[in-house]
């Protein structure tokens, strides 16, 4: 039984603004608010799943039926992504309970809630301008969160992020304006229908602008310059949230754009090539990194490259694989970030070389990190295996053997740098005076959830795949989506 899906956006927004006053009443209470609210979101998305799988749930806001009014279109895709976002959000929120001890933590929680709300909005909305608005909400809270630690590096990273992010906003806004000017509508389904009659030159302009804009959010090369800095300088949970939430929303937007709204075939090849380049360059950069979180950031970009390859294939199975990869990445990368956060915290240094012997000193953390590393390398029986397998299988089926080979080459590089870190954790003698320390229970719970999901999905991938299949179908066959949205108004 699900409540009104609008609550999934409204409640976090409302709660976010409620936090500062609440903080005046009780400092301790504040940190449980995100857990509660995002927990509700999680519940909502899970409850919605059976419904949206059958038929997209259209929520009409302000009594105007689509295409006239603003609406939430909770198709399988949106729902699955919302589930991913709330899951990651929930886990990160649980983790936050003890991690963010720093003042002013109410702002932190507020921004985090905003970020989640924005991302959820992005994936649920059926209106392209709304999408933009939610994107802005997400982005702005991200900028703020990047600089949350209020040190020099954080500020610099936030500034870079802000710079690139505003370029993205500009381009997206321009693109939307172009579309609106030619089609006269902002509803995505409606646009998809009307775009056929639009002068293709204008359409392609709009597409280019939008692709560039969303490509920045989706960490497509060469638009991802902001990512390494932002990931590594932001507080660790936020790094996890970037990987698990922001990027996922960006990719969602990109997918929606190229699959549903526009129907240009050439763009898929572009995405494919961009994907493989992104992957290779990211992996090649990652291997040279000296900072743990920065390395994870590059790895995250690399994984997104794999998702882009999958999306570029434009086949049902490929998209399924891509979505599965997104799901897995959303589980594994936060796991890595969260464990890395405490590793960095305890070792007192961001550098990989200072992680020596952590396996002795902090066995559980190191275990989770190693577990995540193994999962992201695609070692069975962990979930990363299946998504990688499907994507590569699909890539090769379509004759892109070279792409698959390059991707595998990237994977080998990935194995090298992850194992180097794992090696340092376990194979180097710990520094003098280090003693066994255990991390807070909340963090452990957060990481255990992620690890468990990774293991269970790996052993029984069909569990997730059942829900990804309709989502992929929605992307591939856009008529389902369009029909559902447009018929809702009748």
């Amino acid at each position, binding site marked *: 039984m699900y409540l009104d899906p609008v609550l999934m956006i409204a409640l976090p927004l409302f709660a976010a603004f409620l936090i500062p006053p609440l903080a005046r009443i009780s400092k301790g209470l504040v940190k449980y608010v995100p857990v509660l609210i995002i927990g509700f979101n999680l519940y909502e998305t899970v409850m919605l799943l059976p419904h949206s799988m059958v038929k997209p749930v259209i929520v009409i806001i302000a009594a105007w039926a689509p295409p006239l009014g603003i609406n939430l279109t909770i198709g399988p895709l949106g729902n699955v992504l919302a589930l991913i976002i709330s899951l990651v959000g929930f886990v990160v929120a649980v983790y936050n309970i003890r991690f963010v001890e720093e003042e002013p933590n109410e702002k932190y929680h507020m921004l985090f809630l905003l970020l989640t709300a924005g991302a959820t909005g992005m994936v649920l909305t059926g209106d392209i301008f709304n999408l933009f608005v939610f994107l802005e909400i997400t982005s702005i809270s991200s900028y703020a969160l990047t600089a949350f630690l209020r040190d020099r590096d954080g500020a610099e990273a936030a500034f870079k992020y802000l710079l690139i992010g505003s*370029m993205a906003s500009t381009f997206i806004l321009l693109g939307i304006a172009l579309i609106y000017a030619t089609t006269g509508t902002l509803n995505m389904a409606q646009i998809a229908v009307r775009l056929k009659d639009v002068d*293709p030159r204008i359409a392609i302009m709009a597409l280019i602008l939008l692709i560039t804009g969303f490509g*920045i959010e989706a960490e497509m090369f*060469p*638009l991802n310059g902001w990512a390494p800095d932002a990931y590594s300088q932001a507080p660790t949970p936020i790094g996890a949230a970037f990987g698990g939430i922001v990027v996922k929303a960006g990719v969602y937007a990109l997918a929606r754009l190229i699959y549903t709204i526009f129907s240009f075939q050439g763009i898929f090849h572009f995405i494919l090539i961009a994907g493989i380049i992104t992957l290779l360059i990211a992996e090649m950069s990652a291997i040279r990194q000296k900072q743990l979180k920065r390395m994870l950031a590059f790895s995250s970009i690399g994984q997104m490259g794999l998702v882009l390859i999958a999306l570029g294939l434009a086949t049902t199975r490929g998209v399924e694989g891509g979505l599965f990869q997104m799901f897995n990445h959303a589980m594994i990368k936060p796991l890595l970030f969260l464990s890395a956060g405490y590793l960095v915290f305890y070792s007192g240094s961001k550098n990989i070389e200072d992680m020596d012997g952590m396996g002795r000193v902090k066995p559980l953390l190191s275990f989770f990190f190693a577990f995540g590393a193994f999962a992201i390398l695609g070692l069975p029986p962990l979930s990363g*295996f299946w998504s990688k*397998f499907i994507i590569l299988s699909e890539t*090769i089926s379509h004759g892109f053997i070279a792409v698959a080979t390059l991707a*595998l080459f990237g994977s*080998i590089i990935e194995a090298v740098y992850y194992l180097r870190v794992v090696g340092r954790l376990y194979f180097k003698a710990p520094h003098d005076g280090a003693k066994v320390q255990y991390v807070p229970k909340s963090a452990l719970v957060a990481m255990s959830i992620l690890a468990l999901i990774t293991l269970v999905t790996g052993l029984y991938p069909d569990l997730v795949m059942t829900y990804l299949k309709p989502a992929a179908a929605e992307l591939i066959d856009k008529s389902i989506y369009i029909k559902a949205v447009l018929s809702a108004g009748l």
Partner: protein
Amino acid sequence: METIPFILSILFGAAVLAYLVGKFNYILKVGVSIVGLIWAGWLFLGLQGTLSSFTFKMLGFDIIWRINPLSWLFGMIIFGLAILTAIFSGSYMKGKERVDFYCFAMCITVASMFGIVVSGDLLSFFFFWEIMTWSSFLMVIYYRYEAQAAGLRYFVMSMIGAYAMLTALLIVYAQLGSFLFDVLSAGWSGFSLTLQIWLFVLFVIGFAVKAAMMPLHTWAPDAYTISPAPFTALFSGALSKMGIYGLALLFFVFGAGKLASSVITIQGVSLPGYILAWFGAITALLATFKAIVQDDAKKLLAYSSIGQLGYIILGFSLSSSMGVTAGLYQAVNHSIFKGMLFLAVGAVFYRTGTRKLSEMGGLITRMPYTFFVVLLGIITVAGMPPLSGFTGKWLIYEALIEKHLIFLAVVAFGASTAAFLYLYRIIFTIFLGQRPKRFDEVKEVPWMMRAPMLILALLTVYLGFYPYQLLDLINQAQVYMGIAPFDLSHSMLFNSYGNVSTITVMNIVAVVFFIVFILFNTLYKRSRKVGLKDIHTSGEVPGEEINLHYAVDFYQPFARGVSIFLKRSVSKIYASLADNLEGLFDVMRYVYTGNGQTYALFVVIALAFLFLVKDFLV
């Protein structure tokens, strides 16, 4: 419940259980794993001759697990060796740290190997293959601090192999739409020649890494050396056989053997097979050279293992009835003797704490059982007649000569002769010669360690008498693989070229030995037993501090003679390649400069680029 998934769940369950209860009690965790392995092995033993299979769907892929004579044969290798090594490690690992981790990884490795042999489709084959890779990686890095480089190299090499295999199997899937072996064997001949060759190469790379074929062997010496001794036995005895099993699948189940007849044949051997045979032979020879100059007992055996696997590959790639029999026989035999040698070296390490050949000596009186095992082991490795090794060697040479592959035969013979050198070295420097004073109080290992070694040792004697019992099983596997079974009557090996009766050989040797022994010992008074140091040293009485054990640089003249082969090393090439690549990756610093303006510029460039190519986007 179906037997195969049941066995798998026993093994995985034993792994997890051993890890969990391992926190509490030593006997419990070792006991759990041993009991689990024996239970699973017992169930598996009962599957002989049955064609049990288990099918289900996962992610829309058909998965099938089944038993056939070939997989049963390899499965028995795995379980036999795994149970013995588990018992061995029960005593060996006592008092070591992280035994729970050890038992866990051990059971997982066995489970994954079992999974590989029962897989009836490429997907689960690859799935278990990868599990095997990481679980054995966990074992390689057991001694954590020293093991990093070896572990990393092992893992990366394995990944390269696995990904080559992945590419191949995905290509197969793209072509046939199914991962099933049956579909593949039916569909292989439909592929174009180029595709067949590509698939062949990719699969061979995948399997050759595990089988440590040169030049993909560089992980093996270090990984074998550094892993805990009981596991090394399993590693070399069973895990490397998975590469061989893969090759068997590739040639005879997937149907790459058919590629054979369509292309050029050399002396009745297909070109790819012929090339592979050369790789095998060269591996056998060069690895043997390398083994001769090692000073680390396990490294020596590791190179020896690489060399022996070269023989097996050689046998398989001939694709003839005899060659395959030879390969399979040698595979089983290699598991037995390499298992016993690694265990024995482990036992020596357990008592002396060193693996350096030049530091040991004269342990024969201290560890007679271990000596006996090593003695039988080296006789078997050398392929000398009374024991089981001879049959394998005989089969390989007959197979080569039958095909008139004389150059290969000479290389193989040469490698086999060179093997005497390192075999003698290992038994001499450890057990014979002078004993350093600090090992005077060394004791024989406990029975829990002795028993597995002795069982394997007696097995070689038994097979020396009755090789046909093993050959029977091999013949069943060959029938499954679609190869004419090797013709054998009881205890007689024969082909068109010659024949050997192993029982006669054994009997002659035994009878002559005992006659001479009795004559020699009854006609004479007992001889005087003298001490180790009581040797003629030009009348000098050697003091305790004088080293009379000739063990350092034992084959220095040999090393000088073959220095041309020894000074080049593939691993150095790989290392420099990796270094250069990493240096190249540094170029990426020019991409991610950390400068906001640059990134903004990238965005603009990307936009401009998109505008330029906009016609292609439509």
